[in-house]
């Protein structure tokens, strides 16, 4: 199949890849750009393991064709935090035991990152609803919800003291 030239900004860097237009964004990220933090659980847009941030929206990258990502600005889990400076969400997930096998975790954190920008002071119910596009088979969600609420609280504290 003929390939197309795909230009995107991924985690702040401009990238160019040659890809079949039918390739899914999830596969381009994982296989062409070696960003394997974006996981694949279903390829049918049900599980959210492949969630990335695209043009300031959460998208399930298994349901976006590469060709649709032309010119997009994308943030994956690899773009949140660094080994020396974890993103607050990453720290809170660890602190509150919000992960077990870790397979859903990048999608969860990437979604939570966008969710907290949509709603900076969520209730527990808001979190449960806002995160309902992401499945986890290990944790039963209770500690994920706790981690996200704790992040919101800390972010608001930081804002107030600033």
């Amino acid at each position, binding site marked *: 199949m003929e390939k197309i030239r795909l230009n995107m900004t991924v985690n702040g860097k401009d990238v160019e890849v040659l890809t079949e237009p039918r390739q899914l964004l999830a596969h381009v990220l994982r296989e062409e750009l070696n960003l394997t933090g974006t996981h694949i659980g279903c390829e049918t847009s049900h599980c959210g393991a492949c969630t990335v941030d695209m043009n300031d929206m959460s998208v399930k990258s298994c349901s976006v064709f590469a060709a649709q990502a032309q010119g997009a600005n994308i943030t994956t889990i690899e773009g949140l935090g660094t080994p020396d400076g974890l993103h607050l969400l990453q720290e809170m997930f660890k602190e509150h035991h919000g992960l077990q096998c870790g*397979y859903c975790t990048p999608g969860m954190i990437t979604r939570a990152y966008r969710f907290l920008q949509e709603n900076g002071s969520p209730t527990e119910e808001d979190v449960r609803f806002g995160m309902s596009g992401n499945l986890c088979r290990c944790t039963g969600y209770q500690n994920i919800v706790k981690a996200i609420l704790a992040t919101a609280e800390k972010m608001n504290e930081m804002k107030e003291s600033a």
Partner: protein
Amino acid sequence: MNETIPPKEERMTALNGLGTSRKRVEDARFTQGKGNYVDDIKLQGMLFGDFVRSPYAHARVKSIKTEAALAIPGVHAVITAADLEPLKLHWMPTLAGDVQMVLADGKVLFQGQEVAFVVADNRYAADDGIKAVEVEYEELPVIVDPFKAELDGAPILREDIADKKEGAHGPRRHPNHIFTWESGDRQATEAVISEADVVAEEMVYYHRTHPCPLETCGSVASMDKVNGKLTVWGTFQAPHAVRTVASLISGIAEHNIRIVSPDIGGGFGNKVGVYPGYICSIVASIVTGAPVKWIEDKMDNLMATAFARDYWMQGKISATKEGKITGLWCHTTADHGAFDACADPTKFPAGFMNICTGSYDIPTAFLSVDGIYTNKAPGGVAYRCSFRVTEAAYFIERMIEVLAIKLGMDSAELREKNFIRKDQFPYQSALGWEYDSGDYHTAWDKALKAVNYKELRKEQAERLEAFHKGETRKLIGIGLSHFTEIVGAGPVKNCDILGLGMFDSCEIRIHPTGSAIARLGTISQGQGHATTFAQILASEIGIPAEDITLEEGDTDTAPYGLGTYGSRSTPVAGAATAMAGRKIRAKAQMIAAYLLEVHDNDLEWDVDRFVVKGNPERFKTMKEIAFASYNQAIPNVEPGLEAVSYYDPPNMTYPFGAYICVMEIDVDTGTTEIRQVFALDDCGTRINPMIIEGQVHGGLTEALAIAMGQEIAYDEMGNVTTGTLMDFFVPTAWETPNYQTDYTETPSPHHPIGAKGVGESPNVGGVPAFSNAVHDAFKSFGLTQSHMPHDHWRIWTIANKLGLHEM
């Protein structure tokens, strides 16, 4: 030696050992997306393989044409059974002593069965190839109902063994019959039941479902023809067993096979079995000379790669008028699908189903199980439970409820009356198990108090009254469950899989500067082994958990072990870890005695050091001892500080718990709202309370899914009707309630640290708690039994049949 010794507590805290909620060492990697799961593995020149799968549940394969597929750019090979036959790999042994087709050999026996393996440059090209393979099928009649498998005129499914009168587990009475397994005393039980004051009888069905880990199964095989070494990375819950089996069936010497389980994205039993994809990726690598990756998608996984449960349990339970249980009888029809690939220890073709006397002192019992072939996927894996224990727990907890209805007695009271008492342990069950320890009355009492049980019943009665008056359309259900698990398989004398004894292992090396590495025969799939096993060791050898690296899953480096499933890691490998730690300590004691110029017996262990008895100023820390062990010549002591332990447990462990669920049910819509879930677990000594709680949350959520909607369903043609996440229920954060957890602590008397294992308890105890809540809500209208999963439609149907929509 003049330094001031920090107080004991301070030194214990520094270890971060047993009993602390140590944060997980795995999380830094996982939260940054730096895990290394099998699909993340990328090798030079790697190809991708995927399956042509059968659209039919039962059909003859007349021909397979591969030319068109091979002509597609990027397609390298199409492998069929005919290609595997010369290698004798077209069939493979199953874990249950049966054989299974790797690729369709003349016929297909379930929908989604692997027919041909297309190897291509990448997954897209493989998909193009799959579409171009032409398979001609001739449809055959289908069996989806195990009760019809032995009727006159039933099609014979397994023609390969149609004439075999003896199976792996004894005589077969029909070509579609696999085995009959019996436990207990039939005559005595039937006599007791026929003479009893009260007998309750019920058919309890535990439906077919699937573990559905978020990550599906997959493998990457790389045959290095230069040095003759085969390396396979894959989603293996038992990497060492896979190596031995791979060697036995491929003829490749075991030292030339390296099996690696990288990070695993959840297993729940799904990743115990050996699947055609693993074999085909290996063969494809040998054929093409390139590494070959196989990753199934979610539909493949749900449809073809194992299943769980599917037990029809006919039960009778008898009691005196006062409610003392006298006997239990059970006949199970076990639907095993097309091949008997159940993951059970060899001597237990129905797993530990004979734990079905549960937490109760039942003097006489009998169980028989018939395994049956149908046109469904093979598997029968222990989905977040020890082998068939969740079926057993569900059965007895339902039978208790129906008996309570018959007796007109509160089921909490009935349980209390019949619990095995604390002073009866170790307790010999009527079906042959020796329960190691327990204190059921204390746990039960605590649970009833925690939910304010009496008040709840009052509220329920008031609600019922209001319903009858037409003031509400919502009922309250109170679901009780007291379960006893049997985990930690198991003693080699009676537990093996394919002849491999079910011990486990740990090897420890202490480095000269006093840090350490430990390797185990198990493999974490989210349980946090790297965190918890380091804690066990920290307490045993006095080295901080932070300074201990844990490694699992690479058969070239880890000691042999049978892997992680059936909650066996803590009971077996955890015990091996403690025992290896004790060996290290024993040697360290000799070294310390030499360094301090005293006799071994003059020393005592004090958290992280050996101290001269009566002279606490004189000591050697583990760190000092480690250095000396490598760098000082000590007479009669070999240099170095290493140990390995292979632990063969003397008995299983028996975790237990008391779970209560309170549910509101809308009779007009069949929708449910879970108001409260209280879960009290006793898993013996608690290694890491934070991780235990996390396991309980996760297991309860899987229990909720199973009880309330999750199902692998088939239509009459054998089509899977729930093969995607659209139809197969996996609860989201929105449907999942908050859980209240609590514990009691009854250490296992035979485990070196008293731990029993917990990962699976919440699933075993949770399913009856949720299901009993549904039944309980409709009890006063005459409902005794209704099959799971209790989705809205089924609940609405219960209400409808009971006439509640006319009320």
